[in-house]
């Protein structure tokens, strides 16, 4: 099964609860630390996300994603640690490079924020089937066309990658070099990209026709083969999370007033 979706069905409760609940979780995980303005809130939420991912049996799949962003995060730490405008107190030195307490501290704040956002999104993305999420949106009056575009991207991009490799083969077969210096690659650009565009235009037209004759533009009220993904607990989650967000805001206001 070739799809670029990261979702895997592990059969846990996280796969069964409504996608909306998980979207609320993402919103809460981002807004609560921002509203409260304290670092420990972010740390707590990272721990919560990690616990959820562990429970959902997808913590391992989170690691490669974190590793990719880890490189960027490391750069942030180095640059801020060395060059942040408020740097005063040296913390440690690696050869000629001096790291300052203020910069490192500032960078840590950014790190916590980014890791928190990444991990809460992982909770949503790794445990939710994209089509379930879209179907739920369409049920709530979202445009089915937009929903289709969103979902089909997951399946059609891998198919396009395949077309792309056939095109590369076809042009290489005619003696075209595709590897080597920049000049070679630039020269290969048009012969590779033009057929990709033409064949996707042709395929898109054919697919549009095929969708059309299956009533894609029908104005009738849609029905759904699959039942809506939700559990009894979803109602409470979708009340509790907004309440927590409001509570965080209230807490911040009282802090501010006091």
């Amino acid at each position, binding site marked *: 099964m070739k799809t670029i979706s990261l979702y895997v069905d592990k059969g846990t409760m996280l796969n069964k609860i409504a996608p909306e609940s998980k979207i609320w979780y993402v919103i809460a995980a981002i807004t609560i630390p921002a509203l409260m303005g304290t670092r420990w809130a972010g740390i707590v939420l990272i721990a919560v996300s990690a616990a959820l991912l562990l429970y959902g049996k997808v913590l391992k799949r989170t690691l490669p994603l974190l590793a990719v962003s880890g490189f960027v995060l490391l750069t942030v730490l180095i640059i801020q640690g060395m060059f942040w405008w408020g740097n005063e107190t040296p913390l440690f030195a690696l050869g000629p490079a001096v790291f300052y307490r203020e910069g490192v501290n500032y960078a840590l704040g950014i790190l916590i924020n980014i890791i928190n956002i990444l991990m809460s999104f992982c909770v949503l993305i790794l445990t939710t089937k994209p089509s379930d999420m879209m179907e739920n949106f369409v049920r709530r009056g979202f445009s*089915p066309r937009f929903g289709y575009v969103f*979902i089909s991207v997951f*399946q059609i991009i891998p198919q396009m990658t395949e077309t792309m490799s056939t095109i590369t083969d076809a042009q290489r077969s005619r003696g075209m070099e595709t590897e080597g210096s920049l000049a070679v690659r630039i020269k290969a650009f048009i012969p590779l990209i033009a057929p990709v565009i033409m064949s996707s235009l042709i395929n898109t037209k*054919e697919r549009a*026709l095929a969708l*059309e004759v299956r*009533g894609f533009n*029908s104005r009738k009220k*849609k029905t759904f083969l699959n039942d809506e993904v939700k559990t009894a607990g979803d109602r409470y989650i979708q009340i509790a999370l907004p309440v927590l967000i409001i509570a965080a805001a209230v807490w911040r206001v009282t802090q501010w007033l006091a």
Partner: protein
Amino acid sequence: MASLNIEHLKYKYPGTDRLALNDISLSIETGEFIGIIGRNESGKSSLCQAIAGLIPNFYKGAYGGKVLIDDIEVKKVPVDELCETVGTVFQNPFNQVTGAKATVYEEIAFGLENMGVPKEEMIRRIDRAMELLDISKYRDRYPFDLSGGQMQRMAIAGVIAMHPQVIILDEPTSQLDPQGREEVFQAVQKLCGQGITIILVEHNMEKIAQYSNRVALLDAGTLIDFDTPQKIFSRVDLEQYGVEAPVYTQIGKRLNLTIEDTGCYPVTLEEAKTVLLRKGGNDPVWL
């Protein structure tokens, strides 16, 4: 009673000055298996699209005449409603996969969901369609993982689940291997047996001869002839229209062997065998 009537149909694609369909009239009975033949660009696909209402409601252009299915004039019905009357299957199975569904079962449901069919009814129709096309065993497979023949049968299942009276298939097997092709033809014949009218474009004349009740021969947008495969393939001027008769007919022509009661040349393997055996075509003496 004729269920599909085409009256003086004319059509020109936008920006061209040649009639793609030039005054075509024909009537097709319910449950017939109609083959459409002719050289490339002769108007076969345009005729299909006109019956499915894609001409003039998807492809614009100059349009004249009428296509009637029972009392419905296809031009006047939006394509998304007409799909419960006429179903269309295209050449490339791959481009008919919606790309939005994770299993064959869900894929077949796509059209039914759009038409607002209630869930219980939907399940009943999908199960029946999968059974007719013999793809029940692939129910939970990922649509893009099927072979060409299986994928094409899934596309047909998606179309027949919408319960059309007429199904149009535009070269549905040209991209398939012999086994996949045979699977599709047998499935289509089974649908025809269920009373669904079949309209099929195909370059393989042996298959056309084997499965069609009647054949429409087109050239340059004009309907040259519409008759039984025997009559059509017995025409002496066939090659003039860029069509080669089935090999069995060619053998009949060369040996001047006709079927007694119709005076036509044989068109299928069975017919060729019959006339040859009558002539004493048993094992010829070899050297």
